[in-house]
């Protein structure tokens, strides 16, 4: 056992370190970045960034996509070498001058004194070799040991990161691991040589929220146990709040604000930080206070009176055949009324997308009933379904993939109009122009192509397309999960506004519990094909009945470090129970 004390701060004033070549831990900072710039061709990804990290400290680098946070993290290990990027300034990591070091010096740093954990754990491990062999290979690069000792070390670190039955699992290949186990394996690889610095680049972005919580807890514990420094790169302010002491907010390659995490998140000084924090959806905030109140008129009673728009009874859908048959949706009953938003939350594989697609009959139910305005449509043949198609629309997750890149956005938005039989070009143009305007774009954007728009704008185009057919019900499948928080907030606000204005029914499917709370009147929690809990949003969030709902809510990272610690304790409690 090593020391349990976190090695935060310098271990006393032992004179100013004049040289950084000393390998032993001195009062020198673990990381010292001065005027770092990274240029990709004409684009400056990192712009004169400077920061230090003391041994054992933890720094969170937070920013939206394109802010240069990953490019900065890569520079710490010299990973821009040979990629065509130009790196300027100075980077000192654990005594190595990264920008000046030769290949050998760099290799001695990488993995041994500073190790990196990447975002996507599946693609970051070699699919062809057993996980244990890959860790052993890295260990042998830095330590003069034989194969067997290296394998033993691999099993040891796999066990340390909480992989059950590590000796056996070390012989499995990455595809035989679950997503969370893969990320644990990558962390084990990083731990193998006991580095002084761990650089984690969006380590939990590809994971479900409950798994994310486990990985963050693991990083937290490891840091306190080994005394290594942590540099955590993330777009998710909540993830940073859970894990670091200091936070550095980046925008367009440059620093916006830096300081202790409680101060920056609790009392931000810069306008951009405030804007960013305001956009982050919060689990604790009631929707009625923020959205409905603006309008004044209480909508809820009216909604309750309304007849159900769509009603699913014991809806099922199975995929595969024989022994491989899996029920993706296994008996779901729900209703959506006009003017109401039903949020469906669930982790990956819970069946929420399958359910959403069945509600608009993009997928045929295997069994169960589906009634639209009192008419049974679950088994209606395509020809008889046609009149309803127009009224049941969908907005998809990936705004890039769901627009045809070879057609102008105007043509894409016009598709439902043409499908409905509109032939008059002038009327189509007018209508598309009005729709584009309605979602916050310009009528002149008709001729533009999807690649000319940002992610948020593309999602607006997707919404305009769904609106074109004058639908009664729109199913949005993860409509904002590919967007940055500030964009996310705008798109969510647009959806809420459109719904109030047009009185449509909205089904909002997402994995992000806070986003769902922002928009939903009622919430359904999905797990393994069934709804474990369904009810008024405030009731579900404030007084969850189902243990799984409680587990999900406890796993959401909190913005306030104090609250984060409380949630961490709650998770431990739940895990023990």
């Amino acid at each position: 056992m090593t020391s349990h004390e976190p090695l935060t701060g310098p271990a006393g004033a032992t004179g100013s370190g004049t040289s950084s070549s000393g390998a032993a831990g001195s009062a020198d900072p673990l990381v010292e970045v001065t005027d770092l710039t990274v240029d990709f061709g004409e684009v400056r990804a990192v712009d004169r960034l400077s920061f230090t990290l003391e041994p054992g400290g933890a720094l969170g680098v937070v920013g939206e996509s394109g802010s240069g946070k990953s490019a900065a993290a890569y520079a710490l290990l010299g990973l821009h070498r040979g990629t065509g990027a130009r790196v300027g300034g100075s980077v000192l990591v654990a005594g190595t001058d990264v920008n000046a070091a030769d290949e050998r010096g760099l290799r001695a740093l990488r993995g041994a004194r500073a190790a990196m954990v990447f975002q996507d754990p599946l693609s970051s491990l070699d699919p062809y070799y057993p996980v244990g062999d890959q860790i052993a290979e890295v260990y042998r690069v830095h330590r003069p040991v034989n194969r067997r000792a290296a394998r033993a070390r691999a099993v040891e670190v796999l066990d340390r990161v909480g992989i059950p039955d590590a000796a056996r699992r070390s012989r499995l290949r990455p595809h035989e691991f679950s997503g969370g186990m893969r990320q644990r394996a990558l962390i084990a690889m990083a731990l193998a040589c006991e580095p002084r610095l761990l650089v984690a680049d969006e380590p939990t972005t590809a994971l479900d929220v409950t798994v994310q919580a486990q990985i963050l807890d693991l990083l937290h514990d490891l840091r306190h146990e080994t005394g290594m420094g942590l540099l955590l790169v993330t777009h998710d302010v909540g993830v940073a709040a859970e894990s670091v002491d200091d936070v550095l907010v980046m925008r367009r390659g440059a620093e916006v604000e830096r300081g202790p995490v409680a101060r920056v998140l609790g009392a931000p000084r810069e306008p951009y930080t405030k804007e960013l924090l305001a956009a982050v959806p919060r689990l604790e905030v009631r929707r009625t206070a923020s959205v409905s109140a603006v309008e004044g008129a209480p909508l809820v009673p009216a909604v309750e009176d309304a007849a159900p728009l769509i009603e699913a009874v014991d809806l099922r859908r199975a995929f595969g055949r024989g022994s491989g048959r899996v029920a993706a949706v296994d008996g779901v009953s729900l209703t959506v009324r006009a003017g109401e938003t039903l949020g469906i939350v669930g982790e990956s594989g819970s069946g929420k997308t399958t359910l959403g697609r069945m509600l608009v009959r993009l997928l045929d139910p295997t069994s169960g009933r589906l009634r639209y305005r009192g008419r049974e449509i679950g088994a209606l043949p395509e020809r008889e379904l046609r009149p309803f198609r127009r009224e049941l629309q969908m907005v998809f997750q990936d705004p890039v993939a769901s627009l045809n890149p070879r057609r102008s956005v105007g043509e894409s938005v016009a598709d439902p109009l043409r499908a409905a039989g509109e032939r008059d070009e002038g009327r189509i143009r007018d209508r598309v122009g009005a729709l584009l305007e309605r979602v916050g774009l310009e009528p002149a954007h008709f001729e533009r192509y999807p690649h000319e728009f940002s992610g948020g704008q593309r999602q607006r185009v997707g919404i305009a397309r769904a609106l074109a057919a004058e639908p009664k019900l729109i199913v949005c499948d993860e409509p904002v999960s590919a967007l940055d928080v500030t964009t996310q907030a705008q798109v969510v606000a647009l959806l809420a506004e459109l719904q109030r204005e047009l009185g449509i029914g909205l089904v909002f499917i997402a994995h992000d519990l806070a986003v769902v709370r922002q928009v939903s009147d009622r919430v359904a929690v999905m797990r393994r094909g069934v709804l474990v809990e369904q009810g008024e949003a405030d009731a579900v969030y404030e007084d969850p009945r189902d243990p799984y709902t409680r587990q999900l809510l406890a796993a959401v990272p909190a913005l306030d470090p104090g609250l984060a610690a409380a949630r961490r304790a709650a998770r431990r409690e739940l895990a023990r129970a």
Partner: protein
Amino acid sequence: MTGFLLRRLGGAVLVLLALTVVLYAVFYVAPGDVAQIACGPRCSPAQVAQVTEQLRLDDPVYVQYAHFLQGIVAGRDFSTGTGAEHCAMPCLGVSYQSDQQVTQLILAKLPVTGSLVIGAFAGWLVLGVGTGVLSAWRRGRLTERVLTWLTLAGSATPVFVIGLLLIILFCSTLQWLPAPSYVPFTEDPEQWAWGLLLPWTSLALIESAKYARLTRSAMLETLAEDHVRTFRAYGVGERAVIGRHALRGAVAPVIALSALDFGTMFGGAVLTESLFGIPGIGRELVHAVKVVDLPVVVGMVLVTGFFVVLANAVADLLYALADRRVALS
């Protein structure tokens, strides 16, 4: 894994069966007097009648085919005027023009073509994959550009040009090598190797160009993958990154193409065999087509098909061994 293997072999057998049906339909059910064609232009009416009887051409088509198939899987007897001639298990019929069983004819040529193909195959794999890896590694540098030009030139040059140049250079001008000739391995292994050196080299040079380009593009793809980045970020040396992690992912398309080439080479190395005077299957096939020796043509096409199917089955097996996920799907 066993299930995967059995399914794959079952598939291979089905493909071969389909091949026999198609071949039989094309050659024996074709319009015209099949017996006259098979027997050759100089046959007397009596001989033609005998061929008709032997091939059961008076029976319904499916009976004819059943006998054809029976010959392949179990052997069959042919009545000659005086008695019966037995044609043993993989019986592909009898060549009436050379008065020989087709199977014997092919078996006699198989070691010749086999020697040529296996040697050249090893050569082009080593040369092609090596060049491909090198040019992916040295991307954008002079080495890569030179190699790209060489492989382009290689794939654009016909085998008889390279072969002739090699013969002129090494046999006539420098006189380092004897004129290429085929000596069976069992007779004199050393002479066998010397005699085949030039055919191997020319075939390998031509074919390797294709492999170099394929390997290069596959390597560039895997070198850009996340897991390669991981090992670089952990201080693993470039040699190990390329040899162990990048190449492993790049071999799949190489295996697939090798299987096809290896199989077709058995029936298709015609030019090389003719140029170097190697009495292999390719030359025999050209001759059989020229004189319209129907049973021989059918037999050789079938044998070539067999090698293609076999090589593909082996390739799939190698695939599954290289990447365990294949056997799962």
